[in-house]
């Protein structure tokens, strides 16, 4: 197996608050190969954003207790001094945020914001950087990029702002792009444009991409591997087909059953009962146990480990492999 581009080992991010310790990320390990697209799915508060913000070095030790390792191209980002992290962030790892309205500065022209990011890392003149920014706007298919670069964010539509964000994120040819809910604020037609653009640029720049989303459709269409997160832990990890056609975790079953599918007639949705737990009082044992229909005594006692069954696909669940297969075929796939 080739050297992974990024390897996260037993990452824990705990925020001390007045109400108690919020265990936003609690023992997460995964890796991503160059050129791979990894999807991280989960509901609000499952820790998917915090884990990627930590990789970016945007959650600091001042705010939270961070343990574990984040190995990127051979060095542990968590041990790097702030200045060195700054040379990596934006240049080698960059990020697209959910809300393009708030992540662009309203006072500065779009072209200036992109060229500022370039000049932070490259020693070139303002003029050259601006020309590069115009080039990038052209690459993300913004028409009349020269004129557009001189406009302010409010003159852009939502989809165009998101394109501008992508232009900024890719302007330094990063090895890893983290897209945190990149299309949640956009219409489906614009979402399709943006995701298509990310796919094409990924191939062109040969970058690895992490897409964080709550939309199971987005990951099905665009990712090679999927990580399902629940209450700060990875519930299941596998190839996209494993997750959709052979999922082995009751939470993944619940997620897949609770969405209406366009292609098939579903009479009634099967929601997961109850609510996600508070991250201050995570239930003992498996954190999904209060909502799990297949719970038994061991689930309340022991925390299940994420052990790969076939070297790749892994589910953190105490059910035996036979039980999982039986439930999957009798109750989960039969409902589709």
């Amino acid at each position: 197996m080739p050297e992974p581009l990024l390897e996260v080992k037993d990452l824990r991010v705990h925020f001390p608050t007045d109400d108690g310790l919020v265990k936003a990320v609690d023992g997460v390990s995964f890796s991503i190969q160059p050129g791979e697209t990894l999807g991280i799915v989960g509901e609000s508060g499952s820790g998917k954003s915090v884990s990627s913000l930590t990789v970016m070095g945007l959650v600091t030790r001042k705010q939270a207790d961070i343990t574990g390792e984040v190995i990127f191209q051979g060095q542990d980002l968590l041990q790097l001094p702030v200045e060195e992290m700054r040379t990596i962030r934006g240049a080698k790892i960059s990020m697209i945020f959910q809300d393009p309205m708030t992540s662009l500065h309203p006072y500065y022209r779009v072209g200036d914001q992109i060229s500022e990011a370039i000049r932070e890392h490259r020693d070139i003149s303002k003029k050259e950087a601006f020309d590069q920014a115009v080039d990038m706007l052209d690459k993300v298919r913004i028409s009349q990029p020269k004129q557009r670069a001189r406009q302010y964010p409010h003159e852009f539509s939502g989809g165009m702002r998101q394109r501008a964000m992508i232009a900024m994120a890719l302007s330094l040819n990063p090895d890893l792009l983290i897209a945190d809910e990149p299309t949640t604020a956009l219409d489906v037609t614009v979402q399709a444009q943006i995701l298509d653009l990310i796919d094409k640029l990924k191939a062109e720049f040969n970058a690895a991409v992490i897409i964080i989303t709550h939309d199971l459709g987005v990951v099905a269409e665009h990712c090679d591997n999927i990580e399902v997160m629940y209450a700060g832990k990875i519930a299941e990890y596998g190839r996209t087909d494993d997750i959709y056609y052979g999922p082995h975790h009751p939470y993944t079953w619940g997620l897949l059953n609770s969405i209406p599918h366009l292609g098939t007639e579903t009479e009634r949705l099967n929601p997961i009962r109850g609510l996600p737990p508070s991250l201050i009082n995570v239930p003992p044992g498996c954190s999904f146990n209060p909502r799990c229909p297949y719970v038994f005594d061991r689930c309340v006692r022991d925390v299940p480990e994420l052990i790969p069954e076939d070297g790749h696909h892994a589910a953190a669940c105490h059910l035996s492999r036979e039980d999982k297969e039986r439930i999957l075929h009798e109750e989960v796939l039969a409902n589709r």
Partner: protein
Amino acid sequence: MSVEVNERQEPAASPAREPLVRIQGVKKYFPITQGILFQRHIGDVRAVDGVDLEVYPGETVGLVGETGCGKSTLARVIMRLFNPTAGQIWFEGRDISSIKGRELRDLRRDMQMVFQDPYASLNPRKTVGSIIADPFELHKTVAKDKIKGEVQQLMELVGLNPEHYNRYPHEFSGGQRQRIGVARSLALRPKLIVCDEPVSALDVSVQAQILNLLEDLQNEFNLTYLFIAHDLSVVKHVSDRVAVMYLGKIVEIADGADLYREPKHPYTEALLSAVPVADPNMARRKKQIILEGDVPSPIDPPSGCRFHPRCPKSKSLATQGGDSGGVMPMCTEQEPELREMAAKHIAACHYPVEARTIEPDPQT
């Protein structure tokens, strides 16, 4: 333009049914003015620009379209929260397009709304009990001493613990807050409930709970829903019929399954193909149509068919005809009217789509 879909028959209902809501030629323009003292009228945002629609008792009509297509404005015009610029609205056969005061307030008993954002649509300084009791106090349909009992009954009905009567909205999760909104809308036993993006702010597992709740309540109280959402799979799941809007106009109306299987309007086809499918094999087979550009401004909508600048079908037909880069002349010159293209399936297009977008799943 007048299209009658009166032939529509529900299996469980009598054939000659009166629509609960009927709107004809409804327009809503928001004026744009210039100047401070003497405000000159320089144009209009044509949010809704000539819509005909019928909603029958007990059915769910879904309204889909991109941001700014006028779907929320249309719902608010039907609710008479906005006055229509032109056109007429009938509710149970009565013209309500210009009623005022007492009459309008009485009408509101029969039509209620559930809003998108369960965080913003509940007053944070009032207890849940008094939020749900507000409709009773405004309309005086229940004696004062019976209000608490009614409210607790409503809370139980929507799956909230009645003992939480004295709690404040911030003590509830998003899904529970949306239940409070639903309970409030049910208080006066309305006939029509307009749901404006009721689940888009919620997580998937909670979203399914709310959708099931809405379905149960519909069966129990014979409610009629006008369901607005941008998530097409959710709309298809809940709706009997789906209307697709583009730039202030309805471009297609059909039964949810028909619309999905055989979209007639190129816009509907593109919209459906853009929805990410939670099924990798189907996603690989899917022919995805990427629409170029953004929705044009409703201040100055394109001539003829409003979709023509982005229409892939019209462009490919023009290219076949030798005019590459252009569109069919008919599309720029003449506005297509809604016409029946299949049973209970109407669309406004000069060159409707013939082939399917997505292959049907062999298993189903």
